[in-house]
């Protein structure tokens, strides 16, 4: 008999007024008892809608029933057979629009906390040393011994798309080399998403287990500069998977955007996450603003705002031109941000950044907005309220208005087509306009989610395998 408790089993969290001054993880995870209690809320539907909501089709009721019985390692193996990075997706997936959004328990009360349980199983397996990247689902696995006659495949970019593709290809017996532009592998998982939401040692463990599986990762390799895609083929790689993400920051084009104290969210977060600017023992400088305006309403904006607070800001404002309902961020992030004292200025749009005589930001001019008719995306489009401008005193502005794919690879790879947003054109989500070249993740979809990128990596591994076999 299912546990009919209406709400999710609460997960312990650091108190808001404590955590907004440290960088440790906000959510502490379930205990085994809490996990078993929560998993027992699953009704075990015959036609599980939750699974349909999952971009990588995790067998949710199956793993939940194992958790209920305390068989955590087995539950982990079920998850791991379709999801290569569960410790990560359990923490950062927008569950409310995916699996949990479809859960029937959500009709009367809260859905089963599938994300938290996924995280629990992955953390359990990691702690017990049972985590493995070998999904066990492949049939052609030749084991993980390096052998020189393996077929070589190159992966460009080490974000979730690149990593999951590399893992799946290695499991299928290929010799995979991942080329990463930065000095550390992980993509947005290491340079974008902060420690307090996704501890970096979890990402490092996932990457280490890929390396144990035989995947070679070369950092400091900017493809398009040090080697072109064509040269990768010359070096003997039989296929190339491009997972270079969408890292090019968009600016607003308003006056004052190049003033001192204006950051792209990418720069601000990279200084903090990749370059550890919040730690005294690191050399990275960062502006510790007293009053910070973050422009945007997505996960990136929430991460930047909560990071600014942790650096010691007295006021951190989220400036977003639509309403809270329209914010693309995960609900939990909005909720956490509010608890931590982030001030939300909704239906507000910046029009100008003002500076003092030394070129430093002194304030931001904003205009109020009203919601009009729904636009093509179904969201109601905001319209400026004439004459409603006002100045907000801030010393730092962070622009989190989205990103586009970096043009470097497109510009250096003849015949590789992109659309007008700069995203690679594919016939089936992964096959590009160049033979032997596949692409996936944010580089194809534009900025999206970790789980979609991971799913794309898996699809690509399948397509690459088919492609190489068809040529033999």
């Amino acid at each position, binding site marked *: 008999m299912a546990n009919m408790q209406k709400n999710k089993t609460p997960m312990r969290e650091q108190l808001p007024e404590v955590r907004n001054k440290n960088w440790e993880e906000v959510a502490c995870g379930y205990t085994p008892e809490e996990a078993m209690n929560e998993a027992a809320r699953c009704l075990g539907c015959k036609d599980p809608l939750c699974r349909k909501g999952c971009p990588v089709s995790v067998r949710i009721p199956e793993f939940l029933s194992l958790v209920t019985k305390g068989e955590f390692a087995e539950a982990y193996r079920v998850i791991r057979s379709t999801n290569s990075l569960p410790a990560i997706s359990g923490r950062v997936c927008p569950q409310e629009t995916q699996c949990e959004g479809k859960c029937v328990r959500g009709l009367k009360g809260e859905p089963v906390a599938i994300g938290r349980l996924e995280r629990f199983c992955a953390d359990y397996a990691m702690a017990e040393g049972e985590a493995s990247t070998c999904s066990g689902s492949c049939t052609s696995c030749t084991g993980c011994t390096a052998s020189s006659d393996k077929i070589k495949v190159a992966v460009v970019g080490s974000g979730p798309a690149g990593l999951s593709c590399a893992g799946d290809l290695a499991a299928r017996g290929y010799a995979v080399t991942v080329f990463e*532009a*930065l*000095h550390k592998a992980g993509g947005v998982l290491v340079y974008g998403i902060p420690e307090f939401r996704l501890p970096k040692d979890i990402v490092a463990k996932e990457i280490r287990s890929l390396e144990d599986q035989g995947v070679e990762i070369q*950092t*400091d*390799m*900017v493809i398009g*500069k*040090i*080697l072109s895609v064509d040269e990768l083929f010359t070096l003997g790689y039989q296929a190339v998977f491009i997972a270079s993400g969408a*890292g*090019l*920051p968009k*600016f607003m084009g308003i006056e004052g*955007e*190049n*003033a*001192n*104290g204006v*950051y*792209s969210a*990418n*720069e601000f977060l*990279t*200084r903090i996450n990749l*370059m*550890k600017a919040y730690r*005294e*023992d*690191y*050399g*990275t*400088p960062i*502006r510790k603003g007293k009053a910070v305006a973050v422009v945007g309403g997505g996960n990136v904006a929430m991460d930047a705002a909560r990071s600014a607070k942790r650096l010691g800001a007295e006021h951190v404002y989220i400036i977003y031109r639509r309403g809270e309902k329209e914010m693309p961020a995960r609900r939990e992030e909005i909720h956490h941000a509010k608890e931590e004292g982030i001030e939300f200025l909704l239906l507000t749009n910046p029009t100008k950044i003002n500076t003092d005589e*030394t*070129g430093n930001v002194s304030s931001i001019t904003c205009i109020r907005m009203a919601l009009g008719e729904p636009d093509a995306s179904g969201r109601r489009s905001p319209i400026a309220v004439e004459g409603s401008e006002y100045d907000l005193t801030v010393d730092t502005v962070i622009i989190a208005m989205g990103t586009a794919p*970096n*043009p*470097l690879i497109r510009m250096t790879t003849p015949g590789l087509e992109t659309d007008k947003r700069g995203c690679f054109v594919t016939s089936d989500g992964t096959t590009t306009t160049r033979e032997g070249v596949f692409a996936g993740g944010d580089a194809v979809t534009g900025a999206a989610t970790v789980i979609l990128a991971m799913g794309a990596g898996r699809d690509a591994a399948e397509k690459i395998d088919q492609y190489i076999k068809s040529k033999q």
Partner: protein
Amino acid sequence: MIKIIKKEKLAEGVTRLVLNAPLIAQKAMAGQFVILRPTEKGERIPLTIADYHRERGELTVIYQTVGRTTAELDTLGEGDSILNVAGPLGKASELEGMKKVAVIGGGLGCAIAYPQAKALHEKGADVDMIAGFRSRELIILEDEMRACAKLTIMTDDGSYGQKGLVTDALKEKILRGVSYDTVIAIGPPIMMKYVSLLTKEYGIRTIVSMNPIMIDGTGMCGGCRLTVDGKTKFACVDGPDFDGHLVDFDELMRRNATYRSDEQEQMKRFHECNLFKGIRQGEV
């Protein structure tokens, strides 16, 4: 990890490193740069490629010890390795079709200007090089520059060459009737600004090399952005070379000062911490 093959002091606080970096050396072109991070806790800093030798797989960079990261880099010696070096980054300088060129270097900028003068000389261009330094002790690469160009050295205090600014020498040459098709100016932003103002007056095409704050060097952070012809450009991917008549130098100088007080604080910390290390190891 990239190994330091040779380390050489060129002047007070100015050092030349030859690195064993065959892949980068294979692709390097004049005007491009690398981003390096000497140690785990250091920053990523851009350094222009000062020279390369493809067959030997060698790459040369020159740096001035100004902040914490260059001070950290300076603690490494021959045989040691630099943790991360990524490159070559940025666009190569376009030197085709130039016949009569003035290459102007200011201080450490000479390290970047020199390979351009050399490349132009090898392409058969007639090169005048004007190199400016604060004083005699800071002069670098004199013999190298002299080997590929007619060299004029200017010092602020007149302790060597002629006393004055690089713009004085350039103006004198222009007034004497030397007709340049291009001027290349590389050095402190203030120098590039005044060279560009001067050449604009005489309608001479001018190329400058920008040195803003950078992190990734791949177009991901936008920290290196500057305004060129009213438009925002990323120096790391759109540059580092730009048309000097179109660059907003004042904005660049303001942005470069963003972390100045931080940088001094970091230097202090670095020295203190090295001092303590010294004491612990009984070296002081």
